[in-house]
């Protein structure tokens, strides 16, 4: 009898353990409830330069809305992800002409800008982009803009590479870093090979662009998933040439890297105007305004400029930067001239999106 008692204890251990684990699992959601009553999680599908960790923490503390970012590179990937995942994401960042595509496909929805007090801090022209207007509503909240150009390290690159053809030089084998955005890389290749409309290329133009890419490939060190990887590559000198946004020279200097200079290719280039949008099937649409309102306040935008170098659309932040002594830097990077953004070839979906992606993949293998 006593032995059975002993044995029972161990069998009971199993039962207890199993019950405990099962109970914890089922109670898991309950576990989270006290926290989630005060804090909702806003999932963002975005780029790494749209936020900072301390910014998210501060916003969470102030509003109880905790941002949870998932990163992506190419708008095409984000578009597909939103299409496939329903209500998983609340905020999605998008470039230029992708925004209307999202709306047209019923993936995001426009809103009244005046519902966002922080929108008053924007440059007025940012609130009136024709391609983002939807009746009296606006499709997205404007964030930042930049051209995509060539940055080079003069220590190793003796002649200024002011054309896309110049960077094909065999001297630069394995020394170029650029972002892994197939659609836009193809557009650049289109520019390099003379296509008038880089985002609406014909098959022949796509072929030519692909050929240019093939020649570029041996020179590519790495296809970076976010632009700060390009900055790092330039900073530690593993790359001599970077194809990336405005302000990279400052960022490389901040990362204790060498002096790099900008070169604007004479064939022309592309640029982006990016934004934050409401995902239509999000479950937190009611607090989207509150969240973005806190996220986009001028002090954070000013900090974002210092970290990421390219201009943004928040005018109040520009004034803050001037007060902080960064006025010269801001003006050098065209922060006070948002009208220039409209002169760029703005990023958007390609006419034949699949053909662009295929061409890119067929060159780079993956």
């Amino acid at each position, binding site marked *: 009898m006593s032995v059975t008692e002993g044995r029972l204890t161990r069998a009971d251990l199993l039962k207890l353990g199993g019950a405990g684990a099962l109970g914890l699992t089922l109670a898991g959601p309950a576990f989270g409830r006290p926290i989630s009553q005060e804090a909702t999680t806003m999932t963002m599908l975005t780029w790494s330069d749209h936020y900072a960790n301390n910014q998210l923490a501060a916003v969470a503390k102030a509003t109880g809305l905790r941002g949870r970012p998932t990163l992506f590179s190419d708008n*095409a*990937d984000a578009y*597909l992800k939103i*299409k*496939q995942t329903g209500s998983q994401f609340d905020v999605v960042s998008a470039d230029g002409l992708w925004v209307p595509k999202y709306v047209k496909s019923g993936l995001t929805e426009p809103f009244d800008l005046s519902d966002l007090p922080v929108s008053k801090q924007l440059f007025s022209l940012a609130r009136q982009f024709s391609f983002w207007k939807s009746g009296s509503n606006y499709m997205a909240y404007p964030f930042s803009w930049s051209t995509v150009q060539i940055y080079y390290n003069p220590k190793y690159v003796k002649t200024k590479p002011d054309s896309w053809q110049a960077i094909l030089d065999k001297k630069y084998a*394995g020394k170029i870093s650029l972002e892994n955005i197939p659609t836009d890389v193809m557009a650049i290749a289109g520019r390099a090979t003379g296509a008038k409309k880089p985002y609406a290329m014909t098959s022949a133009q796509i072929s030519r662009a692909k050929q240019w890419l093939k020649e570029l*490939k041996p020179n*590519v*060190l*790495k*296809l970076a998933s976010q632009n700060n990887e390009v900055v790092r590559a330039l*900073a*530690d*000198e*593993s790359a001599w040439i970077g194809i990336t946004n405005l302000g990279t020279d400052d960022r490389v200097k901040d990362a204790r890297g060498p002096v790099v200079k900008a070169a604007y290719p004479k064939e022309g280039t592309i640029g982006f105007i990016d934004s934050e949008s409401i995902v239509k099937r999000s479950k937190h649409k009611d607090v989207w305004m509150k969240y973005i309102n806190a996220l986009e306040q001028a002090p954070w935008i000013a900090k974002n400029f210092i970290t990421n170098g390219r201009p943004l659309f928040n005018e109040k932040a520009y004034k803050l930067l001037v007060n902080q002594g960064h006025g010269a830097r801001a003006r050098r990077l065209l922060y006070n001239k948002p009208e220039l953004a409209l002169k760029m070839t703005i990023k958007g979906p390609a006419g034949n999106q699949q053909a662009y*992606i295929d061409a890119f*993949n*067929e*060159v*780079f*293998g*993956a």
Partner: protein
Amino acid sequence: MVEQQVATPPHALPPADVSAGRRGSRLSGLTQYAGFIPALLLYGLFFLAPFGLIVAYSFWQTIDYEVVHKWTVDNYRYFFSVPTYVRTMWATLWVSFAATAITLLMAFPLAYWLVRYVRKSLQGFFLVLVVVPFWTSYLLRVYAWLNILGEGGAINRFLQWTGVTEHPVSFFLYDRPAVILVLVYLYFPFAALTLYASLQKFDWNQYKAALDLGAPPRMALLRIVLPQMKAGMVTAVIFVFIPILGEYLTPQLVGGAKGVMIGNLVVNFFSGAQYTRGAAVSLLIAGLIVFLLLIVRKSLEVEDPYRA
């Protein structure tokens, strides 16, 4: 009655034989397989079914990001028609082969050292020491190498500090050698453990006998020890080569533009919603794996440890 039970001498009890047990120490008929039911459910639904789906998808089409159930071999034809993809496939095989060879070459002396020169009581300790790094997150182990490789990283700083090089050398990062290096690091414990287990079983008296008969140690090693290690080496090769075929994270983090492997292509297709193409490439990989396993299954046939 009591006498009857007590009088049964111990040696008359049937030998320890579970599978042929009487008196219901095993269940009879189909109920003995009852334990398999949860596993069958889990793997039927979530392992076999997805696999079947992959097979089907690889023969269907994607039109406008939607999968259409029209049969075609176009996905395969497309894959083989792109020279870059085919080159990536060969590159993957080459990298797997190189990494496996290097891993085994490195692991064998270690296993030999353990069996031959280390006290039996300490062997377990040193073995665990080999495995310990392996029991940390795979991602972390790759990330650890990112710290070391790279122009700003340890190797380059060291080389520059000692004056061996002036500029950072990018050989150590973002190319195939870096991928192979990290893969060797990741799969080394697999090989070491398997080779150790195999060497352990070897009867060293044969080696001694060969030496007694006048053979030099190296010849004894080559002609006596190695042939009997064949099974162990094949197992080690399988455990290293096959997972490397499907590698994607290591090439992505340390491979750069030149270190692309076929796993990256699969991920690319699936992220781009080209499910049918991704399925075709996945099936190619899986097919290769099954093919390899079939070839070596004779060597893998160890005596069934679960048979009584």
